[in-house]
């Protein structure tokens, strides 16, 4: 069964149509990278999947459940999806360990000690073992973003949504975050991510999806999209971002 099936998704803000008939499917363990200019609808697409934005039409199916049905429990759905934001959005009044175990304790009803053990294990694996009891404002941007990723994956979500997670980072710190994402792919996570890191997209993506004006213009394996783009919009976008 596919993890995510989106069909004919529409969304507008007032007169501004942001998504016009998007179709997208993610199989299990698949990593799909969304590329496209700012305003092309990448972030909005991710937000509709997480039920942060209500859609105007279409269907979103998560592992067989129609989550665009207003009768579903939105909190239950969100607890099955991990999200990482551009601006980290860690909770500044909580220690790192409390940030990453919050959902496990408060949503999934896990025992505090077990959640903590899992949190410490993941933080240590991602090089944050000495930051367990620190507050987020003592951490660098790259460290904060790695904590945010741990927070999103601690409860083993079915789908991981990454929204331009390196865009707010110093170029020096981008690598440490992308290394982590590569590790998640190798561990079998299903990931849908929006990014401007084209080299990373080429390296990690199973499929690259180019969005333009709220539509998916072109999609395919990275080699095809980056080396032989078919559509003029794709060619123009790639020419700009890669300075060719």
């Amino acid at each position: 069964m596919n993890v995510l099936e989106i069909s004919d998704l529409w969304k507008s803000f007032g007169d501004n149509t942001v998504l016009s008939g998007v179709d997208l499917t993610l199989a299990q363990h698949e990593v799909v990278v969304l590329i496209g200019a700012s305003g092309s609808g990448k972030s909005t697409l991710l937000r509709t999947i997480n039920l942060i934005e209500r859609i105007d039409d279409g269907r979103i199916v998560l592992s067989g459940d129609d989550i665009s049905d207003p009768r579903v429990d939105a909190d239950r759905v969100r607890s099955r999806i991990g999200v990482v934001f551009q601006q980290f959005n860690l909770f500044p009044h909580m220690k790192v360990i409390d940030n990453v175990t919050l959902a496990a304790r408060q949503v999934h009803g896990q025992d505090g000690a077990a959640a903590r053990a899992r949190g410490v294990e993941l933080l240590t694996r991602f090089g944050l073992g000495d930051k367990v009891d620190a507050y987020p404002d003592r951490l660098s941007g790259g460290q904060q973003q790695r904590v945010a990723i741990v927070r999103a994956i601690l409860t083993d979500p079915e789908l991981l949504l990454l929204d331009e997670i390196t865009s707010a980072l110093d170029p020096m710190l981008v690598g440490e975050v992308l290394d982590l994402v590569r590790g998640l792919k190798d561990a079998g996570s299903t990931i849908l991510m929006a990014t401007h890191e084209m080299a990373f997209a080429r390296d990690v993506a199973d499929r690259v999806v180019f969005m333009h004006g709220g539509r998916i213009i072109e999609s395919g394996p990275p080699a095809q999209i980056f080396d032989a783009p078919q559509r003029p919009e794709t060619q123009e976008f790639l020419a700009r971002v890669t300075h060719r």
Partner: protein
Amino acid sequence: MSNGASQSASDVTHEVSALEIERRQYRQRASRRSVLIAVGSTVAFTVIASLIVVNTPGWEAVKESFFNWEIGRDSFAGILKGLWLNIRALFFAAIGVAIFGTLLAVLRSLRGPVFFPLRAVATIYVDLFRGMPVLIVLYLVGFGIPALDIFPRMDAAVWGTIAIGLCYSAYVAEVLRAGMEAVHPSQRIAARSLGLSHGKTLRLVVIPQGVRKVIPALMNDFVSMQKDVGLISVLGAVDAIRAAQIDVASTYNFTPYVVAALLFVAISVPLTRLTDYVAGRMNMREQIGGTV
């Protein structure tokens, strides 16, 4: 994945230059001079102000009726005993305000048409109790509610505490609501994205951060409430002010009021300084002011 690039600054030794030493000496001299000026001007001001007051034509009479040492000393124990009632009233009122004020703030911040009645009730409550003079609320609650004959007989101090709590809940609710609204929406989105319900998002993420943002304002309300608990005396509770009033009536001298006033100031000063300290520490943590 380690940050080998950022080397720790503490293992670098640095010898302070002659230029910096000269600047530090200058700053030290300048600050010593400012302290001297401050001390001098304070002393001069105090002396002049005292001389003016002491040389007013009615000073002898005022001194006798407001600053009579014997009367003040004799009334002190009774007023202090009354003050203990004020402190207890403050304690219980503060707990009540913390609970009820938070509830009102949450009700006022509810979204959606389903919650309209709750939101409307909370809004009307806040409008009403922020607008009414505390004294009138005291009369209404202290004399009106017992007259309904549905509650067991309770001490006037209890009704007074309830009245003060009702008023301050309205003020505190508005302060808390402002704090909650100052928490960036991305924090709510992050919490909801983890699957937290609206209620848990408020309780675990929004309220803790909102309260931190308004701690100085809340402490200011607390200091203000600390002196307003003296108003329960109008209901007949024998608190510090009432005790002073009784002594005033029997001695025809106002010194007991001055004693009560000084005692109220004595408990508010530490709180005020604590407020300043907390606000200062928060500013330092923000580190956005630089040295200006």
